[in-house]
Every structure is written in C-alpha cells, then in structure tokens.
C-alpha cells in the first residue's frame, strides 16, 4: 500500500509563532495514508533530506516555503522522480493569513490535498536523451565565429552556415574598432621595407612618399614581399598610415638574427599544427617558428651604370666628340649658344670652349631639353674628370661588373674609405696582390701606392695600399659598402656574388672538421661594423638563396653559414679568388658531397606535414617500418610533436610515392612543401622595449594584408582576419558559405536541419584564389563590401581576407561571356551551377545572424540617398579605411576632401518613428572613434557630433574616446538636427537647435555621417518562424529570459548570440559567442537534458490531429494513424491537453485522476 511521508519546515523556527505545528503533526500522524510526519528546522540546508533519512524513490509532501525557492533545489537532480509534492505553508499560509488559527487551518487543507495527489503520482522516467554532439552556428559574424571556435576547441564538430560568400559579418567592414583603435600592425618608422626593385626603404620614408603621391595624384606603384599560401609574392602597397606610438614595443629576435620591433597587437605568422597561424606579437613565445623567405628575388635587375651612381656636380664628362655633338644639337635647337646658356642656366664660357666639359648634371639637363635619351648618351661617356690631383679617369667598363664589385667587396671588408682616398690594409701578400691586379684591370692608368707599415709588437707586418680615386670613392659611398649594404641589395645576383666573393676573401673564414662519419663545415664573416652591417650581409646572402645567422660575439658581429645546402650553394655561386681560401672551399665541397650536414634549424618543415603523413598512413595503411626513419621519429612527427626535416621528408616521399595514389590531395600538398619558398625561423629572444619615436607606421598590402619587413618574417595588419582564418583552418569547423537554413525539425540533441547552398558558379574545391578570372571579366558590379564606392567585377572575391578565399560569380551581373572559364587553369568555373541541399543532424543550434542596420531613407529630413555627401557610418568606415576605395583619404563622392564633418547620432534609434525605440548601443562610441580617426588622418579637419546623450559606458570609452575627443577639439552639440539642406557647392547645412542653450543654428559642413542604429529586417522573422522561436516587438529574436537566460530561447537547444537579439557592440557579441558556446558544450557534456514532465499520448488517440496545430514547438508528430510526442522537443506546457477532444494526452502527474481527488480533499470538511 502506498503511504506518504510529510515533511514540515519551521523555517528556522520563525514560523512557530505563526502556525501550530503540533496540531499539524497530530492531524496527520493519525492518518493511515501517512507513513510519518517529520518536522525540520531548515529544509533548504545542504543534505537536509539525507539527514532526515529520506532518499531515493519515496512519496513525500514537502510543506515549506515558496516552491520557486525550494523546488529548484531538488528538482535539479530529480532524485524523487516526480513523486514529491510541494505545499507552500509560509507565503501562502503563515504570511498571508492574519492569525495563527486560520493559517493552520489553511495549511491542513493544502497538505491534505497534496497527500491525495502524492498517493496517485507515478514515477517519471528521467533517463537521458540521445544527443548528437555536433553544433550548427547560423551566421558567421564575429559572434558566430567566436562561438564556433570555442565549441570546436572543446572538441566538437561545428558547422557555420553563412549567407554571404565569406564569413566576417559587419566587423569585416570596419576600419578600426573602439575604444583602443586597434587593428593595425604597427612598427617603428625605421623598419626597412624591401620594394620590388630591391630598394630598401624605411617605413617612415615610404609613408612620406605614399602620402606625397596621393597629393600629386601621380600613382607610382610600390610592391613588396608578401605571403600567400606558402608562396612568396610581390604585392602592391596600397597605403600607409601613421599612428601615435604606444609606450612599449615588443622586440622579436630570431635565430637568423632578424631583429624587429612591433606594437604588441601586431600579428605574426607562426607555424602551428593546423598550418600557418596568426599570433599577436604579445603572445609570442620563445621557440615559436616564424615563416621566413628562403630567397629574396628582385624583379628589376638590369645593368647598373657607374655614371648614374656618381654625384651630378663633381664629375665632368671629358669626351670631346660627345661634347661636340651636344654643342651642335644645342645650336640647332636654340640657334645660339648664348640662348642655350641662359635657358639651361649653364655658364656660357663652358659651352663656348672647344672642349666643353659639362658636368653630369648639366648633361642630363641638356638631354632633357633637346630631347635626347639619357640612356643613349651615357653609353658614349668614356672619360670623366674631376677637380683635384690626377683628375682624369677613363672608364674601361661603363657599368658595374664583377671585377668592380669584387674590388668593392675587398674594400668593404678590409678597406677604409676616407674623403680623398681609399686605403686597404692587409697582412696577407696574396690578397694585396689580388687587390692590385684587379684595380689595375679596372683603372689601367691610375696609380696605386703600396707601402709597408712597421710591425708593432706581436703584429704581423702590415701592408697598405693607398688609392686616390674619386670615382671609386664615390661609387663605394653611393653603394654604402661601409654602411649597411642597402644599395647593393638591388643589384644583379651576379654582382652581389662578386661582391661577396671580395668580402669573403677579405673578412671571410672557412672551417672544416672532417672526422670519420662526422663532418662539420662553417663559413663565417667577422665584422666590426655593427649589427646592421651584419644583417645587410645576411640579406645579400638571402638574395642568392643562402641562409645565414647573424649574431653578436663580443664587440664583433658574426655572419655564419653552416647549413649543408647553403655551404654548397655559397661555394658554387660565390667561391673565392684567394688561393688558400679557394682550396679550403674545394675541400669543404668535396667532403660535403659524401655527407651533407643538415641545416639544423633551417631544414625544418612545418608541423602540418606530420598531419598529412599521418593522413596518408591511415588512408593507405602504411606500416611504420615502411618509412626510412626511426619508428619513434616517425611517430613523433605524425603526432606533431616535432618537425620533420627537409631531407627526411624527401626520403619519406620517395617511399610513399610507390604506395599512394599520385593525385591524392595530401600527397600533392606534401610535394608542394618540398618546393617551399619559406623556412621556419625560430624566435630566440623577446624583449619589451620603450618606444623611441612618437609615431608608429603601418602599410596595407593588397590583397594579402601581410608583408615581410626587412625580408625577415611574415607579419599582418588585421584584427578580425586572424580570427576568421583561424576558423577557416580549424579542423572541427566546417564553413558552409552562400547558404541558408530552410527547415529545422526535431528538438534538443537531435535537430534535423535542411540547408540550401546557393550556387556560386565556382567550384570551391578547385578554386585556389589566384584571381586570373577577375583580370578577364568585362563586367563591373557595385561592391557591397565597400559600400558601393568601388565597383568590382562580376566574378569577385568578397574582400581580401575572405574566408574561404574563393571567388564567386554574381549572376545578376554576369553576361555569361565565358572568358573566365578560359582563363581558369583549374577548370573551376561552371556557369550551370545549381543550388544544392545539405542535410545536417546537430544537437544544438546557435543563432548569430546579426541584424540589419536602419535604412536612413526612411528619414526624409536627412535626404540620405538624395544628397550624395550624406553617408551612413558604415560607408564612412570604408572611406576612412586604409584598404578602402579611397585608400584611407577622406574624400567626398565628388572627389573633394572633406574638411568639416558632422555626425548625427541616434538615426533610427531612440525614437518612435520608423526606427526602434531602443538605444543602438554602439554608435556613440563608434562616432567618437570615427571622429578621432578623422583628426588622426587630417589635423586640419573639424568634426562636430550632434548627440542626444553621450553614452560612453564601456571600459575605456570615457578616457580613450570621450576625453581624447575633447582634447582633440571635437565639437559636441546636444541636438537632434531637424533637417539637412544642400548649398550650391554641394556642401550641407545642418539645421539644429542646441538643447543645452536653446539656441538655433545652421552649420555648414562638407559631409554628414548618419550614425544609424540596428533595425532587424523581415528575414529575421522568417528565420525565427523556421526555428520555432519568437521575436520581440522590434523584430529582434527573443531570449528565454532577458536577465537570467539571456542566451537561450524558448526552444531548448537553440541559443542566440550577437546583435540578432538586440543592439550590441563587438565586445558583447564576442562575449555572447563564447557564452553560447559554453551552453552548447555543457549541453553536450551534461547527462540528462530531458524534462521529466512531457506530454504523453495514450491509446485513446484517434489521430484527429488537432493537437498538431496546438503545439508551438512542433513536438507532436504523426505516427501512423495516431500521434507521437517528441520528448526532446516537448516543453511540458500542456497546450495540447486542451486541444485533444479525446483527452488522450496527459502531462506528467497532472492528470484529472491526480488533481480531482486533490481538490476534493481540500474542500472536504
């Protein structure tokens, strides 16, 4: 027989005065249905039930405080399996009735009823549900990406469905983000950048040049090295910018000796198990491997004319024939020489002389004036003179040749360049002879004076060669042979090799230790000219593809070549003229031929190789013993614990080739690694250094957004980009671009989602993002990403850092000419592409679709769309962005620079008009950030912000945004302008009333930026309907509870994050992304997500189907001629109970058979 235990709680004895517990106890202890009555002091105490000896499956009636306080405590564990009943004797009896008598009377009735119900309760099943441990994230904005990354990091598979061709969302369009204006990569102005023609230029000079170019609207193209999927490319620098320097910078030093400073936010490319990854400089660790180019190619490398290296004024051309020709031409052009003299500003007596010796500068001017080609004229110059002793020099060779460079190399190593002469010191007779021989060959008619210096104590006898040759002096100075070798870098490889040969003969040293089975060889240069010089030498070696290390040793700098391949190529390409050193090199080459010492660090291949090898092993079941390496070695490589060397990779591939399919993508990728243009450079030292300059600089490289400063390693300048590429690279994340969710069925743990993938007309598996198709496409379309400011072709890539980086065709504009199909080498384009349907089965869904922005044309008083200089803040972001359509110059659409800019806040928010009533959250900060950007770009610009209330509530918003804006002279006007008018010259008049002073005014500005708020479109409602969730009155998705369940929806297993459920900024969106990810993972890891109380259909069901329509959650489905409840979807609301005419549906223990006796018992006398 069923009996009930009654628990009474005195609430810490506070209820004793208000209720007669003795009476309660006596009434029920005599009842045969009651097993026992227990009185407790505090039931809410931890383990209170265990202390009273109650556990497991027993029928209890708990008479205590409000069920919302107590019930949750033990329903969470469902230890009573639905057999516990709760009566509130505190709030409903003791506290609600005036006296003790009445309270006790009411409590007895309520408990009586509960006893009847408890007797009839049936135990509920609480076992767990099937959970598919995969998640779907709808929307690939910042919230969605953050969420997907966090779920993926917890080890679950995630699908991102994005309607656009690339993930990134709104944030991808932003220039910099508030309040810190981070985004850019920044480096000190002294950092060297190598341009496409080999010129090494500092960032500051480059910035000056680029900003100058913009002013003169004459576009010179600058290209620099960039990294694009393991290939070294020269890419265009589109802009540079200058920002205020932070106080601390991070100095990174690598084992090759590259030393570079960065702002801590700056991204650097490091090797990770998933392939190349961007890491913030501040998070870098010693031992991280950086991608660094093996060989620096320079495109333009023609002959270098000596005459072009000389200063314009100090040398004169002494070729009489040439001068005569020039004089004749002048006479033809100007009729008299006197006219020519006055026109060209050249002294008449020089022109008049029979042997008129013109300086190089004058000659160039004349050539320009009379239309002669300087390139032709310089070929005729053979003899030069200059003021001073022995002033006549005959040029045997008119351009730099190997001999000349060899001589310069010798001078660079052991020479000394003074103002008038060059001295070459040495103790080695052979070298001195070599020097003299070379010098005589280049300048046969010039003297070189050899003297012996007295030997000092302990020193060998030294010889000095003294040369007085202004020409050699000037060339050596121009090529900076004693400074940083920067100018030599752009010469031809052949000349660089000759220079290095000279340098090696002077300062180089080759060492060979040849013991049986063990060879070490080394070539070192020891330099006393400082670190920069050593690094210059390192770069010259890199031009030839020879890797070296630069390090400081005492007060000297050592450049060290020790890799086997590098030694061989040094011997092959450079070699030596010095008999002794040459023979040493020959011996090294001979020993290396039999046994190559590995290059140690420089031979390492990326960690990714390990994964690819492991994939191949699994696919083709290759046993460990098949590999030509030690087992443990292979195992460690495949576990990605260590990196395989190039040599071993070659050996592995030789074996693997015989087993695998040669078209296997993993195999092909490994093959590509053999040809890699990069090596991995190890971070050796990290230091925080104070910034020495007021500014830091940044360049934007199109389209890769990364570059290689000083030819050292790859760095990037993007904030969201790394996050996106991380998502693209993560093995647990599958991105489905161009796709929409069409249908969602099922419930928590087991959603069946149908997704339509719209055609892109380009096969993403084949497209490698080379961009050949864009070059041939004849059609342009407006560019959504660039706010329609710069058109793109009909086949396009959404933006430079797009993930996935695949091209798509917009069929609205495509004319189907087929040119792109011909251009595509991979046959990736298919104009007959059709929509595809993908079915996914996931356990949880995160909705992070974001929100649309308010359409300002709905506010006619601002004339957006009509006046071209009224723009939205999103368009402004693109204009001010360095990689945007105007290259970061604030231009109006008519091309004039905008000097006076007004921001109007709260357009479409905080109003009862066409927008929404809520604050749009981000725009105060965004406008202040934009104001700061304008002032940073142009110190003369004035900025006005029309605000209602400034809401600078976030961290750092007050000081970094508002105070800085005030200090910067941004004018804040408290007003909501009533109208914008246009003046004759395209300027705008903002009509406003200052609500602080009550004064009315009109302000003339060049440009008005409307800070538009969020306004969800109808699409959100459609999506909500598909998912079975609700929207609020503004059209945002609705959460389960705005405060305590802000990320859950009314459908269990569906979560929201980001601006799709209300206005948010980036920080909050990412926080919510991570929060939703935490909920998803706890759902996947938790044990019992099923609600014990769900609707049940009994046999009485006739299959009429009325309940189907009543269920908001779609939890009832047809099952043959009856219906069935999906337990995971059912929310236990009971709506179907009402709909069922047969009363066939029951809900837990809440049927008539339980409730009716309860009611009767309560009313019984």
């Amino acid at each position, binding site marked *: 027989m069923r009996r009930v235990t009654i628990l009474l709680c005195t609430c810490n004895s506070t209820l004793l005065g208000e209720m007669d517990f003795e009476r309660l106890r006596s009434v029920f202890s005599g009842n045969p249905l009651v097993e026992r009555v227990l009185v407790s002091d505090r039931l809410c105490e931890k383990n209170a039930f265990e202390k009273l000896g109650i556990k497991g499956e027993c029928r209890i009636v708990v008479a205590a405080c*409000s*069920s*919302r306080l107590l019930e949750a405590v033990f329903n969470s564990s469902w230890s009573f399996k639905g057999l516990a009943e*709760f009566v*509130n004797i*505190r*709030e*409903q*009896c*003791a*506290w*609600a*009735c*005036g006296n003790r008598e*009445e*309270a006790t*009377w*009411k409590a007895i*009735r*309520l408990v009586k*009823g509960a006893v009847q119900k408890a007797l009839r309760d049936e135990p509920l099943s609480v076992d767990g549900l099937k959970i598919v441990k995969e998640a779907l994230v709808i929307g690939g904005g910042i919230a969605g990406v953050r969420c997907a990354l966090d779920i993926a990091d917890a080890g679950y598979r995630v699908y991102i469905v994005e309607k656009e061709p690339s993930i990134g969302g709104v944030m991808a369009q932003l220039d910099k983000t508030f309040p810190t204006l981070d985004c850019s990569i920044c480096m000190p102005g002294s950092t060297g950048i190598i341009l496409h023609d080999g010129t090494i230029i500092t960032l500051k000079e480059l910035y000056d040049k680029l900003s100058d170019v913009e002013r003169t609207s004459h576009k010179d193209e600058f290209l620099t090295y960039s990294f694009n999927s393991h290939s070294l490319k020269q890419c265009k620098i589109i802009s540079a910018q200058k920002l205020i320097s932070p106080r601390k910078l991070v100095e990174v030093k690598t084992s090759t000796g590259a030393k570079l400073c960065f702002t801590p936010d700056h991204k650097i490319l490091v090797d990770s198990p998933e392939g190349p990854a961007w890491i913030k400089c501040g998070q870098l660790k010693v031992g991280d491997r950086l991608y660094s180019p093996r060989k620096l190619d320079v495109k333009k490398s023609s002959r270098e004319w000596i005459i072009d290296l000389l200063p314009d004024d100090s040398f004169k051309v002494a070729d009489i024939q040439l001068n005569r020709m020039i004089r004749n031409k002048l006479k033809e052009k100007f009729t008299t020489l006197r006219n020519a003299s006055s026109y060209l500003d050249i002294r008449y007596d020089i022109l008049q002389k029979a042997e008129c010796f013109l300086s190089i500068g004058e000659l160039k001017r004349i050539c320009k004036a009379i239309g002669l080609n300087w390139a032709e004229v310089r070929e005729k110059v053979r003899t030069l003179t200059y003021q001073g002793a022995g002033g006549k020099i005959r040029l045997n060779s008119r351009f730099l040749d190997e001999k000349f460079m060899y001589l310069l190399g010798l001078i660079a190593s052991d020479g000394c360049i003074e103002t008038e002469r060059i001295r070459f010191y040495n103790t080695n007779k052979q070298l001195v002879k070599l020097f003299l021989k070379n010098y005589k060959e280049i300048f046969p008619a010039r003297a070189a004076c050899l003297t012996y210096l007295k030997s000092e104590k302990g020193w060998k006898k030294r010889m000095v060669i003294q040369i007085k040759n202004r020409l050699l002096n000037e060339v050596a100075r121009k090529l900076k042979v004693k400074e940083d070798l920067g100018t030599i870098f752009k010469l031809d490889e052949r000349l660089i090799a000759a220079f290095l040969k000279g340098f090696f003969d002077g300062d180089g040293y080759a060492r060979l230790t040849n013991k049986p089975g063990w060879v070490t060889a080394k070539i070192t240069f020891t330099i006393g000219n400082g670190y920069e010089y050593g690094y210059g030498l390192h770069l010259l070696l890199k031009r030839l593809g020879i890797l070296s290390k630069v390090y400081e040793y005492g007060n000297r700098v050592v450049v060290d070549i020790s890799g086997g391949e590098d030694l061989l190529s040094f011997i092959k390409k450079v070699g030596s003229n010095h008999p002794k050193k040459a023979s040493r090199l020959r011996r090294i080459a001979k020993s290396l031929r039999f046994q190559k010492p590995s290059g140690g660090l420089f031979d390492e291949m990326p960690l990714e190789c390990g994964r690819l090898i492991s994939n191949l092993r699994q696919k083709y079941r290759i046993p460990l013993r098949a590999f030509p390496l030690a087992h443990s070695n292979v195992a460690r490589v495949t576990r990605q614990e260590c990196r395989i060397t190039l040599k071993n990779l070659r050996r592995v591939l030789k074996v693997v080739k015989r087993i695998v399919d040669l078209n296997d993508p993993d195999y092909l990728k490994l093959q590509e690694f053999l040809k890699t243009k990069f090596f991995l450079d190890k971070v050796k030292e990290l230091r925080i250094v104070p910034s020495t300059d007021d500014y830091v600089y940044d360049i934007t490289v199109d389209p890769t957004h990364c570059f290689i400063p000083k030819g050292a390693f790859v760095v990037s300048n993007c904030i969201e980009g790394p996050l996106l590429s991380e998502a693209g690279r993560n093995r647990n994340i599958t991105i489905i671009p161009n796709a929409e969710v069409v249908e969602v069925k099922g419930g928590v743990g087991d959603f069946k989602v149908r997704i339509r993938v719209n055609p892109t007309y380009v096969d993403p598996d084949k497209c490698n993002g080379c961009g050949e198709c864009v070059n041939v496409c004849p059609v342009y379309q407006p560019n959504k990403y660039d706010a329609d400011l710069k058109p793109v072709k009909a086949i396009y890539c959404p933006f430079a850092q797009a993930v996935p980086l695949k091209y798509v065709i917009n069929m609205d504009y495509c004319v189907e000419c087929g040119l792109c199909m011909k251009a595509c080498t991979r046959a990736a384009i298919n104009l007959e592409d059709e929509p595809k349907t993908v079915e996914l089965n996931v356990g949880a869904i995160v909705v992070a679709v974001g929100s649309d922005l308010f359409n300002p044309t709905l506010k006619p008083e601002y004339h957006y769309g009509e006046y071209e200089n009224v723009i939205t803040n999103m368009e402004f972001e693109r204009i001010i962005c360095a990689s945007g359509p105007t290259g970061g110059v604030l231009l109006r659409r008519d091309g004039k620079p905008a000097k006076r800019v007004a921001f109007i806040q709260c357009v479409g928010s905080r109003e009862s008009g066409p927008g929404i009533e809520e604050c749009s959250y981000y725009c105060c900060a965004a406008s202040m950030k934009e104001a700061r950007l304008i002032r940073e770009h142009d110190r003369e610009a004035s900025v006005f912000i029309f605000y209602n209330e400034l809401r600078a509530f976030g961290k750092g918003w007050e000081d970094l945004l508002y105070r800085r804006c005030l200090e910067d002279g941004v004018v804040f006007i408290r007003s909501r302008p009533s109208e914008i008018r246009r003046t004759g010259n395209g300027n705008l008049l903002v009509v406003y009333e200052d609500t602080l002073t009550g004064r009315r005014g009109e302000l003339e500005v060049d440009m008005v930026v409307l800070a538009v708020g969020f306004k969800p479109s109808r699409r959100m409602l459609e999506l909500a309907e598909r998912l079975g969730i*609700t929207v*609020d009155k503004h059209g945002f998705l*609705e959460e389960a509870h705005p405060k305590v369940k802000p990320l859950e929806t*009314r459908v269990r297993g569906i979560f929201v994050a980001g601006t799709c459920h209300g206005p948010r900024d980036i920080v909050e969106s990412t926080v919510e992304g991570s929060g939703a990810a935490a909920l998803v993972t706890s759902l996947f890891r938790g044990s019992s997500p099923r609600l014990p*109380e769900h609707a049940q259909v009994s046999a009485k069901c006739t299959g009429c189907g009325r309940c189907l329509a*009543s269920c*908001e959650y779609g939890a009832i489905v047809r099952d043959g001629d009856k219906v069935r409840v999906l337990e995971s979807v059912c929310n*236990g*609301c*009971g*709506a179907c*109970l*009402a*709909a069922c005419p047969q*009363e066939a549906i029951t*809900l*837990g223990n*809440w049927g*008539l058979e339980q*409730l*009716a006796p*309860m*009611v*009767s018992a*309560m*009313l*019984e*006398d």
Partner: protein
Amino acid sequence: MAWKPRVIVFTCWCSSSGVDQAGFEGFTYPPNVLTVRVPCSAVINPSLIVKAFEKGADAVLVTACRPSELRRVAPSRVTEARVSLLRRLLRTIGVDEDRLRILWISSNEGGLFSREVSRILEEVKGLGPLNIGGRMVEQG
C-alpha cells in the same frame, strides 16, 4: 462559525509565484482561498473545475500568464476560451457566472492578487453559498 465562501484557485507556475509574492510582501487575504498549483493553465481540465464546484467550492478562480506577455500565448488563450465557455454553461444551469473567474497574474504581481482575490471573496459572499453542489449530490 459564520459561513465563509471557499474558493479554489488554480494557478499556473508563473502565477503561483505571484501568489507567493503576495505573502512575501505581506499582503493578507482570507484563509479560505485554497491554491492548486499546476504547470500550466492549459492543464486545467473543465471537468476539474466542475468537480471543484461539485465538491463544495463556492467560487473557482483561474490565474494564468497574461497573453500579452508573449511567452506561452496559446495556453492562456485556450484557458480563456474554456473559462468563458464554462461561464456560459454555468449561467444556463442557473449558477451565477461570476463564481468562475480568470485572472491574469504574473510572477511579481502579489499585490494585485491579494486585492483581486479579496474583492472576489466579497462578491461571492454577497452571492451566498452555492447550493447547486448540494442539489447535485442529493439528486445523484
């Protein structure tokens, strides 16, 4: 002891919090208001209400979430329809329809509940004891 009307209040989970809130905030109301807590107002079967009248309740009150509070719209609408239908039925059998009421109470409206319930009790007092229950028992 003078006659006191007995009122059964069916409360959904949200509105039962409202009832608790009344006691919490110190609003008192007569003790003969007996609450039956159900997960959702849609669970309240019309025969349960009839049963309550039959067993001696002088009035029945149903409290539920406001339909305008968006969440769970349908159950509240169902309950509303049921109650209005029952009221009509009561009228046809000669019972004052005001003995059955529906009240929208959300989880923080304790004051509203105590006010309303006291008012209803006064009205029911005016109506006097329901004798239909007794008649039904006698006849049946």
